[in-house]
């Protein structure tokens, strides 16, 4: 376990140090109006939606699945809430809107779970359906417009502060809750068993289907909350761009964190590290002033490097002192 997390930790530290070299004030924290500000806080705040989605994705991937629809689900949650709020500045309306959105997200998760666990469709195809259709649904809800709202209660979710940004508090709370639920009960072990060997688990009496179904619902709800954070941060819902490609970042975060796409053993700590690496990377691109046109290439190079140092084969090939590897 410690070994698996060693490389992600080193990668994160390296990225942070790079930032420190380029921007000496990167680690500086200051308190203003009781709020904590600084480079690190920015990383946490902007990384909160990805982290949240990656948590759900971790459990899905542990069951040998994958959920490509999370970005679209996030957009739907944003659209539904903002349309519901409309011009109302009311806190009650905002809460109701968010509640409706999350219930809808749970229903979308049920749909994904139905396709995967009920009908046995390959997860990548099953969730591709909603990935594509979901954007369309969000467009229908917003009627193709960018819906802007002006509601203080809603703004709290993505832009609010309680010393730390509210969004990161929510994500960390969910992380803690999931860690507690899966590791203190038997859920984690059963999820891993289903992921490693579905047939053996079924013959041992594990309710594989229910478990798989549950993780897709959970992933969709996580995506919904993330969607609320994203749109709340800018007080607007944009069906086209809310949560766009966030599924890729989330999957990447899970994989960098050491959870295998083949299913089975998963690491929530790894996912946290993976999310932080991805967000730090994005921040780094801005702080060290990488030209806009090479941004994606820069990200790709870092990601490949992180993946390579995690691969025992690549490490063995790169290492001149083979003794150290074995």
């Amino acid at each position: 376990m410690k070994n698996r997390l060693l490389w992600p930790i080193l990668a994160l530290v390296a990225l942070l140090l790079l930032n420190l070299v380029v921007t000496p004030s990167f680690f500086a924290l200051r308190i203003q109006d009781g709020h904590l500000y600084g480079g690190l806080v920015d990383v946490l705040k902007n990384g909160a939606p990805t982290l949240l989605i990656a948590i759900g994705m971790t459990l899905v991937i542990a069951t040998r699945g994958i959920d490509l629809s999370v970005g679209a689900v996030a957009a739907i949650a944003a659209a539904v809430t903002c349309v519901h709020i409309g011009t109302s500045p009311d806190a009650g309306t905002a809460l109701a809107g968010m509640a409706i959105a999350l219930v809808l997200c749970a229903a979308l998760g049920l749909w994904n779970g139905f396709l995967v666990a009920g009908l046995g469709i390959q997860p990548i195809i099953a969730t591709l359906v909603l990935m594509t259709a979901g954007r369309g649904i969000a467009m229908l809800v917003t009627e193709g417009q960018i819906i802007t709202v002006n509601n203080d209660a809603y703004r709290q979710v993505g832009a609010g502060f309680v010393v730390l940004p509210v969004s990161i508090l929510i994500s960390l709370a969910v992380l803690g809750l999931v860690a507690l639920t899966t590791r203190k009960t038997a859920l984690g072990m059963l999820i891993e068993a289903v992921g490693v060997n579905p047939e053996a688990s079924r013959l041992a009496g594990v309710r594989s289907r229910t478990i798989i179904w549950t993780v897709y619902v959970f992933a969709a709800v996580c995506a919904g909350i993330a969607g609320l954070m994203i749109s709340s941060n800018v007080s607007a819902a944009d069906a086209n761009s809310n949560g766009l490609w966030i599924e890729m970042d989330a999957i990447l975060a899970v994989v960098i964190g050491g959870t295998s796409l083949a299913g089975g053993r998963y690491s929530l700590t790894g996912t946290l590290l993976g999310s932080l690496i991805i967000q730090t990377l994005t921040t780094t691109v801005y702080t060290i002033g990488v030209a806009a046109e090479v941004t994606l290439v820069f990200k790709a190079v870092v990601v490949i490097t992180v993946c390579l140092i995690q691969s025992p084969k690549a490490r063995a090939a790169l290492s001149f002192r083979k003794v150290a590897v074995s």
Partner: protein
Amino acid sequence: MTESPPPVVEMRGISLAFPGVKALQDVDFRLFPGEVHALMGENGAGKSTLIKTLTGVHTPDSGSVLLAGESVAFSSPGQAQQAGISTVYQEVNLCANLTVAENILLGREPRRFGGIDFPAMRKRAAEVLARIGVHIDPASVLETHPIAVQQLVAIARAIAVDCRVLVLDEPTSSLDAGEVAELFRIMRVLRDEGVAILFVSHFLDQVYEISDRMTVLRNGTLVGEHLTSELDRRDLISKMIGRELGALEAIEDASERHSVSGPVLVRAEGLGRRGAIAPFDLDIRAGEVVGLAGLLGSGRTELARLLFGADRADSGRLIVDGTPLHLRGPRSAIAAGIAFCSEDRKGEGLVADLSIRDNLVLAMQAARGWSRPVSRKVKDSLVEKYLTALDIRPANPDALVRTLSGGNQQKVLLARWLVTEPRLLILDEPTRGIDIGAKAQIQQLVTTLAAEGTAVLFISAELEEVVRIADRIVVLRDRHKIAELDGGSTIDEVVELIAGDPVPEEVAS
């Protein structure tokens, strides 16, 4: 058959061990040109391993392989094929979306100007197909043909190169009678051309119809090489599943065999599933060990899976404790106190990437549901108890199950079910592929469990084992239950039932 030509393949003293298993021990094997040679043995006897050693998939730990008198050491199937040894496997592994001609000549396409010469390829493919008398359009797409024809295309591919040895690993398992006849016709054509054919099949009728000579393996050792005409079925079966001496003798009759007259625990009435097992009746009493005997493919595992609800029965009913039980899946069987150790430990039994501890409590935990975890204390005491009781090594509960040897994996699987305190324990081939010490321990355990009142359904390909520990033996043949024998029966009686043909006077020596 005369023995004048020298063997085209000769394997001498082949030994090969995998972690925890001696797959082959000092096996000799000969294959002559122009003969069909059947390789016989039950599952785990070492047939596939021997074939893979011949075709370069495995490298033997010791021993030598001679091809036409010259020592060879293939490190890959490709090398073996270049040397003239072609293999056709049970599952057709061709590219379904390519044409017949492309499949036959894949990787050795005739070329012209750096591109593939398609007309020449079709012509060449047509020649190969004509050689074995198959008349299909080489330009047609493979998947438009039935499986049987695809199999023939696979053979065409195998003989498209200069082929001296053709290995057919269970080629008939998915063919119907007419298709088998066609395959045999082609095999005879090739044999008469001087190709040496190594044939593996579990269907004795077919073996006797097509083969000239057979080699029998059991538990990784050579039992003997015989001309087919000189070995009758009964002797063959005895050789395949016969006696095993040594450590097992020690626990012979460890428990007095008794006829159990307790109440019926599980009763099957006309339980059956189309294509798997014909409807059967079966009573199992508490404290009784019922043995299932029959050859591979006779429906042993299928019967067990119906009792456990792993497959849904489409006829009959199951009665537990006098009340009909509607089996909706393994969960309802487990709730009724039925446990099932699959013969496929890796695929259907253990969760390889989890620890011994997790595997051990998996069934118990699944029955309790995720929200009521088995406490660490209970887990530790269970693990401690079974690690000691079953002598599981390493005795480290955190060790991943995949790192264990076969025998220890089997014990972990057994322990997983013992933890649930089942009333009926179904053991499908619990002793296959494990070393003799572990085997004796498991047999001992079965006896002890029965004495404590657990009903056990014991399935094994080794008759000796079944006869020794069962209070009653159910005999299966061709997916039918054909007889029930009581515990005192001898191996010969069982063999006779399995072989199924009335014994001719002249052979009854």
